[in-house]
């Protein structure tokens, strides 16, 4: 049976992550399974966990009063669900719903923040991986709201 350390080491997100750090964060991680329709994260909840999707697809949703929820984006294998754990006040800003059965590695964010605070080299390695995720999503969102397929 694979250890969490081995599983983490196989993820593209942790490519080139120093082995000592993989070992360090493995203690904050565990496997999760979600049925289709289950929520990984609910808006407003404490951002005490983020997920690395191993299989399946997750919808990030926004709800508005008197309107049906809107899907802001969908995330799949190898992608991160939840970045609010990095930013105070550490509250989730979207719902994350499993669109199909999802297998994911869940990271205890409180545990990980503590380790990052204690070892800033680890914190920097994590930041180097999360910052591109956030920039790519910001960029993709800009293109979405440009509505490029509409008539000019």
């Amino acid at each position, binding site marked *: 049976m694979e250890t969490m350390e081995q599983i983490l080491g196989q993820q593209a997100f942790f490519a080139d992550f120093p082995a000592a750090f993989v070992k360090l964060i493995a203690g904050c991680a565990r496997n999760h399974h979600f049925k289709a329709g289950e929520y990984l994260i609910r808006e407003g909840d404490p951002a005490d966990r983020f997920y690395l999707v191993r299989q399946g*697809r997750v*919808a990030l*949703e926004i709800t508005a009063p008197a309107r*049906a*929820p*809107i*899907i*802001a*984006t*969908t995330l*799949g*294998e*190898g992608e991160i669900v939840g970045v609010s754990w990095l930013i105070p006040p550490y509250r989730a800003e979207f719902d994350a*719903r499993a*669109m199909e059965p999802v297998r994911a590695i869940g990271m205890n964010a409180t545990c990980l923040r503590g380790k990052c605070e204690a070892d800033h080299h680890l914190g920097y390695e994590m930041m180097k991986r999360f910052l591109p995720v956030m920039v*790519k999503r910001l960029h*993709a969102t800009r*293109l*979405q709201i*440009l*509505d*490029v*397929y*509409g*008539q000019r």
Partner: protein
Amino acid sequence: MGTEVLKDPFVPEIYRVESVRRELADAVTLELAPVSGKRPDFRPGQFNMLYAFGVGEVAISMSVSAHEGPGFVHTVRNAGAVSGALARLEPGSTLGVRGPFGTGWPVAEAEGRDVLIVAGGLGLAPLRPAIQEVLAHRERFGRVTILVGCRSPSEILYQHDLEQWKQRLDVNVEVTVDHAGTDWHGNVGFVTTLIPRSPFDPANVVAMVCGPEVMMRFAATGLQKGGVPASSIYLSMERNMKCAIGLCGHCQFGPAFICKDGPVLPLDRIAGLLTVQEV
């Protein structure tokens, strides 16, 4: 495959509308047959100048491969006076056709390599003939991936074809929309987000990209970030075309004329121009 040479490229041939299929609220597909003679041969990616009598001409790419039928098939969006007149044509009515013109998708050059199709909105129309030819000779190509982006689930072009392609085990098809409610079970996000998730060898892929120019620009950037050389990325450019044979200069794009040197151009030839305003 050669292109028949027209005696006078300025004289349109008369074609009859055989059928009209509504694709989207503002787009129809016209199936055209020559009133006399034979339809000329053409390559995927080429275009015709369609003449709505008394209104004007507009450049529209072929949207079905030459091998799929005896006529021309064009998908037209009602975006102006001429395209609006074309979109209102009914079966039995006639129009003028000049063409085929321009360069085509590098289908033959892609043999032995992976093929990546990236389409945005109505950009799937000029790519469909290339897809049809690749799938007709599937064994000649490596992995084939078709990525399609559009505004919303109700604006997905050629849903029937996409469903058929998805059912094949030898093609990877992904559709994404910019906006969707929770009743949509597919991807949501800009089409460029699908590129890193797609299976292809960046060193041995031919990417064919068509859609709004801003979408093509960012798709090209995404492909290059993924290691695809500019010489393997092809874009179908759109400019206002008039003569269609490189004489009038209306469609000039830097040193190239889109009608004659394009519309399909490799990125390494035009990369520097894509971010220049007013070109």
